[in-house]
Structures are given as C-alpha cells and as structure tokens.
C-alpha cells in the first residue's frame, strides 16, 4: 500500500517525467515524418494507403545498407521514392483507384521486405544507430531539456519540417498550386497549373518522407529490422493527418500525442502496474478511433467536412 503510494509519487515527481517525454518525442519522430509526407500527398488530393509500404521499404533499405546513418537514410529515401513513383504512375498518371493501388503497394512492400529479409544470412542483425546529438545549453534545461534537445538528428529534422512545410504551402506559388489541385483540379488546370505533375510530385515527395520515416525507425530506434516492423505506423500517420486537419502544426501536435501513447508501454513496463502489456499496446489504436470520433463531432457543429481537401481520394478527370 505504502509502496504503491511511493511509486506513484515518484512517477508524478518532476524528474521522472523526463525519460517518458524523451521516449514520447523519439517515438513521435517517424510518425511525424510520415504524416508530414502524407499531408503533402493528401493536400494534392491523393490518399496514399501505400505509406505503410513506404515505411517498411525505407526501414529495410536502411537496415540493408548499414554503415553510417547518412547512407542508411539516403537509401531509405530512395526506397520510399520507388514506392511513390509506382503509386504516382498508377494512381495519378493512369487514374487508377487510389485506395486499391495503395493497398496493393503496401502488401507488395511488406511481402518483398519479408522475403529479402529471410533470404539474408542470419548474421549481423544489428546496425549502428544514430547517436544522440545534444544541443549545448538547451539540453541542460531541467526535465524538458533532455527530452527535447538530446535527440538524434533525425528528430530535429522532423520538427524542422513543420515550419518548413507551413512556409512552403502558404508562402510559395508551388504550395498554392498544391492546395488548388487538391481543391479543384479543373480550376488549377485552367490557371495553367500542371495538375498531373503537381499531384504526382506530391505523392512521390510524400512517399520519400515515408521511406525516411522507416529509416528513422531502424536507425534512430530499433537498431535492427523485423518483418512488419512498421506495425501500422503508416495507417496511424494517415489518421494523424486527418486529426491535424491537414495543417503542419496540427499534424505535429497529433504526432506528439501518439508518440506519447506509444511511449506509454515503456512506462507501464517500468512501473510494474500489473496492467497487461498487450492491453497497453492497444492504446494508440483505440486512441486514434476515439480522437477521430471526438474531432468529428466537435467540428460537425460548425463546418463539417471543410478541412479535408475536396478532391481527396478521387481520381483526376481525364483530359
């Protein structure tokens, strides 16, 4: 009784929050990168169910490359690009059903990485993970310092993406064209925007970020590859984009919430609360459902579907 009290107090104590925050931010990183990519693609009107495939492909590429992290990240991006180009070819250029193509590509990537992984010799399953880059001074701030400023470089990159993406989509003609294509391809076309090129480009860039997210999973977290290690992060990222209302800042906040939910499992294990581990693993998924339901209801009072790009999921009209 008294012991329980003590543990709880310790947990509530300021100093113990830090590892949890650190884990939350680290776990949020691949989600944020993938969701940022997906938000680009969805802004142009393409829902990329192949994102899960991009992540697993990126993870495997990073694992298979090994060596220094930068090489791993580069090949992860290329793996995402490969998936993205295929997606863009079928779903954008050939106007095929976005959802079916995406689902097929995710299956393909999961199967292909599984096959390649099993064909490899069983030796050397570990790769060098990216070291923590502590930012001087800032990382010394109590509690939040280690959590936010003693992270691998990829985390800083992920969070730098947020303002960059905002600036690009709101302050450049390219970003304006992207938003116009997702809103009304005919209007964009009439204004001289190369609609197919913009949409395909958005899918490819978004997929490359998906690949990078997969790379970070291996290079900044697990240090190795496991079949199906993407574990639905691509689908979570799609949910995060909807939750963040297709806005970079919203997407970042939603990613952090999910990072925290996933990091909860470490806390539960560490604290020995007697909650079944499997139940804790459900939390992010249940949270997604609850959050999406709550979000929708909150919005439906005012303007219902206005946040989603109008053309999301629809193929472009034929020329």
């Amino acid at each position, binding site marked *: 009784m008294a012991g329980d009290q003590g543990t709880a107090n310790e947990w509530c104590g300021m100093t113990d929050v830090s590892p949890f925050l650190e884990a939350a931010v680290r776990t949020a990183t691949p989600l944020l990168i993938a969701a940022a990519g997906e938000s680009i693609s969805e802004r142009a009107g393409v829902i990329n169910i192949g994102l899960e495939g991009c992540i697993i492909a990126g993870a495997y590429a990073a694992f298979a490359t090994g060596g220094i992290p930068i090489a791993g990240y580069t090949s992860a991006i290329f793996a995402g690009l490969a998936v993205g180009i295929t997606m863009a070819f079928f779903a954008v250029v050939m106007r095929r059903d976005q959802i079916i193509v995406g689902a097929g590509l995710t299956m393909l990537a999961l199967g292909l990485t599984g096959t390649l992984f099993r064909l490899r010799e069983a030796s050397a399953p570990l790769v060098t993970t990216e070291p923590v880059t502590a930012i001087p001074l800032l990382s010394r701030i109590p509690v939040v310092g280690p959590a936010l400023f003693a992270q691998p470089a990829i985390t800083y990159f992920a969070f730098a993406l947020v303002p960059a993406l905002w600036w690009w989509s*709101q302050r*450049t003609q390219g970003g304006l*064209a992207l938003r*116009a294509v997702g809103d009304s391809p005919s209007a964009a076309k009439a204004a001289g925007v190369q609609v197919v090129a913009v949409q395909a480009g958005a899918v490819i860039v978004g997929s490359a970020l998906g690949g990078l997210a997969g790379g970070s999973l291996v290079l900044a977290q697990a240090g190795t590859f496991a079949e199906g290690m993407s574990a639905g992060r691509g689908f979570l990222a799609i949910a995060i984009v909807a939750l963040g209302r297709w806005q970079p800042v919203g997407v970042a906040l939603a990613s952090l919430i999910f990072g925290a939910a996933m990091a909860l499992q470490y806390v539960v294990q560490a604290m020995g609360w007697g909650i079944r581990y499997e139940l804790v693993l459900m939390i992010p998924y249940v949270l997604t459902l609850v959050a999406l339901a709550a979000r929708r209801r909150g919005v439906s009072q005012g303007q219902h579907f206005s946040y989603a790009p109008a053309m999301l999921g629809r193929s472009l009209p034929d020329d």
Partner: protein
Amino acid sequence: MSARTDGGPALELRGIEKRFGDVVALAGVDLNVAQGSVHALLGENGAGKTTLMRIAYGLVPADRGEVRLFGTPASSHSVRGAVRAGVGMVQQQLSLAPNLSAAENLVLGRRGLFNPAAAAERLDAVSAEFGLRVPAVSRTQDLSIVEQQRLEILKALSRGARLIILDEPTALLAPSEVDDLLQWIRNFASNGGSAVLVTHKLREALAVADDVTVLRRGQVTRAGPAKDTSAQELAAAIFADTAADGASERSSDQPVPAASSEGAVIVEARDVTISRRVPVLRGASFVVRRHEIVGVAAVEGSGHRELLLALAGLLPITAGQLRTPNRIAQIPADRARDGLIPDFSLVENVALRGLGGRRGVMPWSSLAALTSELLRRFGIVAPSPKTPAKALSGGNQQRLVVARELEREVDLVVADNPTRGLDLKATAFVHTQLRGAAAGGAAVLIHSTDLDEILSLATRVLVVFHGSVREVQPERSAVGRAMLGAA
C-alpha cells in the same frame, strides 16, 4: 456601336477541324475577331461553340487548322501560350478553387513566392482598375455567382489579357446582372480590348456585338457585322433544318389551359423553414394545384435548390408544414450524378426508381420489358436495353430519365433544369412531356437557370430570393426584379 480601333485581328482561326471519336465537332471553321471589337459566337447547344473556343484558348488541341493570336501563329498550343499572347477565357463551368481565397485564386498559376497580403492588395487594385467589384473572401465559394464570374474575368485581365472569351456568361445571371455584364463588355471593347461572347441568346448577341458568327453542327452558317443582320436571319442560320421542328414546338408555347383555382391542392407549404447550419429557406407558404405548371425562379444560392429537394422528399424541412403527394417524379439537374448510374444498363437505370422501398426478388424480366417499351414510347435511341447508360448521348440519357419518371401516372413533378445541355429537339421533347404530365393531372414545379424557359412553360411563377418565397406575375421584368430582391 462604338468605333473600333482597327489594329488587325486579335484572334484568327483558319480551317479548324476537330473530331471526338466518330463525332465531327468542327468541320473547318474560320473565325476573325478584330481588336477592339465584341464578337458574338452563336449556335445551339452542341453546335461546337465551346469546343472552338477551347481550341483557341489551348485547352484542347485541334486536329487540323491554324490559330493565330494577335497576328502570331500559336504553334505549340497550350493555355500557358495563349495567356502569354494575351488571351483569357471565362468558361461556363467557372474554374475557381472553392476553398482557396479570392486573392489566392487570382494569383494561382504563377511562379516564385506567394504573399497573401500582396495578393489581396492586387485583388483590390485590379478590381478598382477594371470596375469589377470582388470582396476579398477567404473562401471563394462564399462569393455569389456574379462575383465569382467577375473574379474569373479579373484573373484573365490581371494576366494581361487583351482578348477575353466568355462562354455562356449570362446563363447563371439574373436579368439586371446580365445588363451590367453586357455593359461592361462594351466598355472593355471601347477601351481597346476584344471579347468573344459565346451565347445561344440572340437578344444578347445583338445588344452587344460588333460582329456575329453562327455555328451549326460544326460549320459556320453565317458570319458578318451585327448591324447587317436581323434576329430572324440569325435564327434561321442557327436552326436551319431543325427550324420546322423548333417552330412547331414553339407554337405549343401557349399556356396550358388557364390555371384553375378550383383544381385539387397537390402541394401545400405552410411556413416552411429549411436550415443547413443556417436557415436557407424561411417561412415559405404556397399551394400548387393539379394541372398547374409552376416555375421557380431564382439566382444561384437563393434557397430554391433546397426547396426543390424538400418538395421531392430528399431534404427534411426544419419547421412548418409541407404536404406533398406520394407519387412524385423527379428530374434532377445533374443527370450524370443524380439521375443515372452511367455504368449501369438501361434496365438497371429504369429499376432505380423506387429502389429504396423494394423488397425481395428483382423482377428483371418485367423491368426489361418495361425498358424496351419506354425506349419505343419515348423515342430513345439505344442499341439495346442492356447498353450501359453512358453509351447514350446526353439527349437520350435525359429522355431515359424523363421516361422513367413520367412513365406512370404521378401527382407531382419536380424538375430542376431538365433541359440543361440538350439540343433543341430534346428540349422540345422534355417540354412536351412536362406539359403532358400537367395535362394528365399532375402538378409540375420547374426550375431553370434560363428564365425564358420558365416563362415559356409556367402559368405561375414563384420567386425565391434570399430564402423567402413569393409569387410574381409570370412576366420577364417583374420576375427579373424579384429575383434580385427589388420590389
């Protein structure tokens, strides 16, 4: 007409040919638009007017022929090239992104950085410079139709357009808005600009144009200065061999036997309010009786669309009482979206009617027999009842919808733009069917964006303005004023 500044042609089309599959859309068309002039391009729906202008603007490539813009041949033809040469086009389907701001739509399609404040200033500036007021809304869909059209014109002008092509610009406007637009076009031309006005309305063409070209079935049937021609001559050039058909149908324009005030009440609305987040229709009260054809006139966004949906039983009302009969026929405005399933066979499309309440086994064989009968009875040209609906021409698709809805006796017909995009014959067919339904005992409510169509059919007119409904004398000027809220 104002004096023209003769600086050579703004647009020259030579021998333009275009086919879509087996259909010849344009068979060698020439057109000359002088600088500083207004050129009216006349013709029926499907005559090739829009296709010709889309070719001029670089939206579609021609199969053969030459396009010259301000004296320079447009070789590698594209929208970008046309814009660079000084051409702008306002299409019938306005091309504005509904969720972008007005200013964003104005500057869309450029390169480099985008500055919202500068774009808003630019909107203000061009708006003032060209005398076309557009409020700086954050969502373009919040603009009225006429404001959206102005924004389209400003888009073109702000890119330095000296030739503006307007495709059926008056179709969605109320009469006084039409006059404003025509006046603006005149002023634009007298300041040295050039304009092509694509229309099927003679009155407008003669009111504003310096030159007129008439297209029929992809060929020029008349071209020359507007002052050298008359409405009769132009009508002959437009309709030619269909003139006989047209005349006979027109002659049936006389109103249906005087609307009897003693006919049974079919529709009764009492203080009907419909809300979609905000009230879009308030306190509407009216009755419609058997044998009446009642026109519903309104400019876009007045609440009439919701009224029609509620009458058809597709939208619940928020307050008040609305009594409608059970047997309702509905002809929706967008047949490809709401009236038909393009991928389904004709039989299946006929089977759609009443599907919501159907139970048990589908009686396919009797539905197939019914479909064959409808094809015969309503003169629908189709290879077989098993053909997918998308294989039919637009006119035959609409005939199928009308046939399905009116095949058995109904008490109420709700028709929303039932002749949009149809040629003269198909239009006449639809009108005949609607009159027939009224004669057979139904109450008919019809809305059309073409006020003349309403006036030619209806014995009474209800005008919806800003959510309120009132009855107006079925007469052009009175209805036109009421549509804009004037007394």
